């Protein structure tokens, strides 16, 4: 390692020495990149002093040459993380007695402090992408940002391929324009493809401007898979069967994080663990629907060592250095090697010691998946991130914010936007459509000339029509759109002011609750005592509670992991080391049917109870299999096979019908996929759900406040009504296109489905089995739990009326 061209100022070097620490190689490398004026991307395992490395150049510069005004911006994906870093940064600064002011700015920052920060900014400001965007929309932005030397993006992997990432990238482009000398520093956990991320971080997507620094890898993690008496269940996917054994592991650990894959499962697992918690150990629960205060409380308890375990969802995935975690337990399959590695890294923040993780597979497929993930981590094979073009609804929001800060020439704005890597390929025509949408709504019918949001002056610059629009923009900006929700309020008070807010449940679930019903929330059984506006009032209850349902939130198994699962099925030499249950399951499958190959599509058909079943082992993930189910049953309907329903998992799709499928091949024809999907998707709830999100981000409708719809006071027009009108009158509208892009991506995973169909077309293995095969059992076990899919609303309405009529009959 060369010495950095600027030596570490003595005050910093002394501080390291006083603590008996050595400046690490990657920290020196970051200093050197900064000295050469280069952008930098640091990938490092947890515990490697990543955050300090990011700030080191700033501390060195400010220790040497005091700077008046804002010097460094730090962007974090979590509000809480900004608070945490403040702690870890303030301590060194205080101990070094450096004249550096550090402040946070998030949605929670009081408005007087925000105003003061604009007038007299600190040298270091810790913030989130949302707050940065709002700051950049202020008229003071240009003056405030002009002298900024550095922006540090922490946990960059949490941003890149999301709409938040699009927003952040656009904000970085703006910052670079206001402060051409700006150095960008990205900090990341270990990622599969640092080069791509460097391109994401860089201006103009030019990765060559970015110094990629990789910290030395930490000790290899120790990953175990929980197996008891060689048994693994047939069905289920939460690992709940093992609650007792999990509790024993928690008892043996100092502090454990129990990761689950969804919020609903968090509630269930929490209850299961308490039922086995003979020693009454303090166990907490943490998920994204809990009130922020409730989450902060649990986090604080964890940091203070008052907890022995915490049941958490992805809300705890990101890197807070909370307490002395020595065990991570993953309930259910990890779904991806990168995710497993990140979660495992939550245990033990010292990089020279191995972190410990225990995976609790829910069923036999999940056992294979757990094993595959462990193999992948050991081989250093992480999941690549799916970079995609920037979303146009986010861009529409962004351009209004920029114009709010200062008049802008469309040409200059276009160049600036294109320097943000997700928008590097944006055509001028597409940009102009976004501008037109932002200005007038983008309708063929030019009715809104006088209501234009953006108006061009004589000088050709765009301005807001009225200053009031800037305030409206600030109230509604941001790219995170929550489902419409109601507050869960604990306490008997007549008004929510007297109660304690526990968190939120989605309106759809809330709508099914009546007074006296009980449901599981925040680790408790709550009984509904009443409703008031946006609030559900609750008290402690008992009995058989409902479990709140949350839309989305479940990650599909990654493509690479799926390939490894297939690999294990085709490696009989590995079977011997597997539990008896799993080995026999595979052996019998090989005898009565076949095992899925490395790259074929196995299809089984068989009869059972007057019904014909078809199981498709696609290994393409739950969303793609669900879309496949829709497609295939639609085609079966047309072929007169009388399909009755289907279920999907990460591994397979199973459907059943009154008539047999003799030849499955035509059902998988990839040719007309696009047309059929367009038709189906247009009528599906996926596109409507996606449209609501883009309509809010794109600034067409207001963000809904909790409970407003319920109380009938909705000022806005529902996204559903707008969707119907646009589909009829403006089928080419920008927002319909944006919704389509979103729906075909994460909701339906159409690209993965398309490759599955190609695969089926080329290499399908069809086996007629005499009866249900071992691999088919997990799928069949989930039948009956699924919602009614294709039935027409009319039929259900008529049926409901008939049921009520029958119930009310008195003859």
């Amino acid at each position, binding site marked *: 390692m060369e010495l950095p061209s600027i030596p570490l100022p003595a005050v910093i070097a002394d501080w390291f020495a006083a603590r008996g620490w050595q400046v690490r190689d990657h920290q020196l490398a970051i200093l050197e990149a900064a000295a050469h004026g280069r952008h930098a991307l640091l990938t490092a395992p947890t515990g490697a002093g990543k955050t300090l490395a990011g700030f080191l150049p700033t501390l060195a510069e400010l220790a040497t040459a005091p700077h008046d005004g804002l010097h460094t911006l730090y962007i974090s994906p979590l509000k809480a993380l900004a608070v945490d870093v403040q702690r870890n940064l303030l301590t060194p600064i205080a101990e070094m007695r450096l004249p550096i002011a550090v402040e946070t700015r998030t949605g929670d920052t009081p408005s007087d402090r925000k105003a003061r920060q604009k007038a007299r900014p600190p040298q270091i400001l810790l913030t989130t992408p949302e707050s940065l965007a709002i700051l950049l929309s202020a008229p003071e932005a240009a003056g405030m940002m002009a002298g900024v030397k550095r922006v540090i993006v922490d946990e960059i992997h949490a941003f890149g391929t999301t709409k938040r990432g699009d927003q952040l990238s656009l904000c970085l482009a703006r910052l670079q324009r206001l402060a051409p000398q700006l150095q960008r520093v990205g900090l990341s956990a270990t990622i599969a493809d640092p080069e791509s991320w460097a391109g994401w971080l860089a201006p103009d997507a030019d990765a060559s401007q970015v110094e990629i620094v990789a910290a030395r890898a930490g000790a290899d993690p120790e990953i175990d898979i929980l197996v008891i008496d060689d048994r693994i269940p047939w069905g289920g996917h939460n690992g709940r069967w093992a609650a007792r054994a999990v509790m024993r592991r928690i008892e043996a650990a100092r502090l454990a994080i129990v990761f689950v894959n969804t919020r609903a499962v968090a509630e269930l697992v929490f209850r299961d663990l308490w039922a086995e918690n003979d020693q009454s150990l303090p166990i907490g629960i943490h998920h994204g629907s809990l009130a922020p205060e409730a989450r902060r409380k649990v986090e604080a308890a964890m940091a203070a060592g008052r907890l022995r375990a915490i049941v958490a969802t992805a809300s705890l995935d990101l890197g807070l250095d909370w307490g002395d975690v020595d065990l991570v337990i993953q309930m259910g399959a990890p779904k991806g090697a990168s995710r497993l590695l990140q979660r495992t890294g939550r245990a033990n923040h010292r990089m020279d010691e191995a972190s410990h993780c225990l995976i609790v597979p829910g069923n036999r497929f999940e056992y294979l998946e757990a094993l595959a993930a462990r193999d992948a981590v050991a081989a250093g094979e992480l999941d690549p991130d799916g970079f995609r073009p920037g979303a146009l609804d986010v861009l529409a929001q962004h351009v209004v914010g920029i114009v709010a800060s200062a008049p802008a020439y469309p040409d200059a704005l276009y160049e600036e936007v294109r320097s943000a890597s997700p928008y590097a390929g944006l055509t001028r025509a597409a940009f102009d459509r976004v501008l037109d949408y932002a200005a007038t709504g983008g309708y063929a019918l030019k009715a809104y000339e006088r209501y234009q949001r953006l108006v061009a002056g004589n000088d050709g610059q765009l301005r807001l029509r009225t200053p009031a629009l800037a305030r409206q923009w600030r109230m509604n900006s941001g790219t995170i759109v929550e489902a419409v929700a109601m507050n869960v309020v604990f306490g008997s008070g007549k008004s929510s002011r007297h109660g304690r807010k526990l968190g939120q449940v989605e309106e759809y679930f809330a709508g099914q609750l009546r007074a006296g019903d009980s449901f599981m929330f925040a680790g408790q059984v709550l009984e509904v005592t009443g409703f008031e506006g946006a609030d559900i009032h609750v008290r402690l209850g008992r009995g058989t509670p409902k479990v709140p349902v949350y839309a989305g939130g479940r990650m599909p198994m990654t493509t690479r992991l799926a390939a490894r699962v297939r690999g294990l099925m085709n490696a009989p030499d590995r079977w011997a080391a597997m539990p008896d249950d799993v080995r026999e399951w595979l052996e019998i499958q090989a005898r009565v049917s076949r095992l899925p190959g490395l790259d074929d599509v196995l299809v089984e058909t068989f009869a059972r109870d007057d019904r014909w079943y078809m199981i498709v082992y696609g290994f393409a993930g739950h969303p793609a299999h669900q879309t496949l189910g829709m497609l295939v049953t639609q085609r079966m309907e047309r072929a007169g096979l009388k399909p009755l329903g289907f279920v999907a998992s990460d591994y397979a799709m199973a459907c059943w019908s009154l008539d047999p499928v003799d030849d499955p091949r035509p059902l998988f024809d990839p040719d007309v996929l696009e047309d059929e999907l367009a038709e189906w998707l247009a009528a599906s709830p996926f596109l409507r759900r996606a449209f609501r999100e883009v309509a809010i981000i794109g600034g*067409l409708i*207001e963000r809904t406040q909790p409970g407003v719809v319920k109380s009938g006071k909705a000022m806005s027009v529902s996204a559903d009504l707008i969707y119907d009108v*646009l589909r009829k009158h403006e089928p080419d509208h920008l927002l319909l296109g944006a919704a389509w892009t979103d729906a075909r991506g994460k909701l339906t995973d159409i690209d993965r489905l398309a490759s599955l169909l190609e695969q089926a077309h080329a290499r399908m293995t069809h086996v007629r089995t005499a009866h249900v095969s071992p691999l088919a059992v997990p799928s069949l076990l989930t039948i009956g739990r699924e919602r009614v899919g294709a039935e027409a609303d009319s039929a259900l*309405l008529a049926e409901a*009326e008939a049921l009520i009529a029958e119930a009310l009959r008195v003859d």
Partner: protein
Amino acid sequence: MDDAFDFAGQTLHLMASGGLWWPAAATLFVADLHLEKASHFAAKGWLLPPHASGETLAALIDAVEATGATRVVCLGDSFHDEGGPDRLLPEARRALGLMTRGLDWWWITGNHDDDAAAALGGQVHAEARLGPFVLRHEADPADPGPELSGHFHPKLVVRHRGRQISRRCLAMGPAKLILPAFGTFTGGLEVADPAIRAALAGPCTALVRDGGRLLRFPVG
């Protein structure tokens, strides 16, 4: 037709569009058109699609043609705000003018609109009487009826077999009918809401038109 029901000694038909047809008096009732709601929002910066007024008027023309009504009664909130009539696009203004001049057209004023619609033709009333019916925008629980009104935009929400189905509905009490909203950009209030029950001053049945059939849901 399977869409007929008896109320206050009269035979009425609930149309799929949400209109109420009274053949004996050749009268079509509609409530809560909320015309120019989109432009009302547009003026505030929410650029909703400008097609809703056209949609609503097209549905109204269809209903008039399908029934052959000679009288049309709009039960209030015909425009989303007082300035609405001025903002109608020329084509919509022409279409509406043809109807108000060619038919016996009654505007009942609501809480959103005032008598500005008179400029478009037709007569304006705060309340009116027609045959056995009192006509007003918002039901008056103190009036024994029979009464026809709008205002609440009642909708029925049925949760059945894991699905939630939401439809505009007519709320029928012992002596009162609350019509569904006719306008395109109008949300709804669940018919079981206490506000609707209070307005009806008695038990409520929700009537839903589904295809050619009229479904009845006792709400309590």
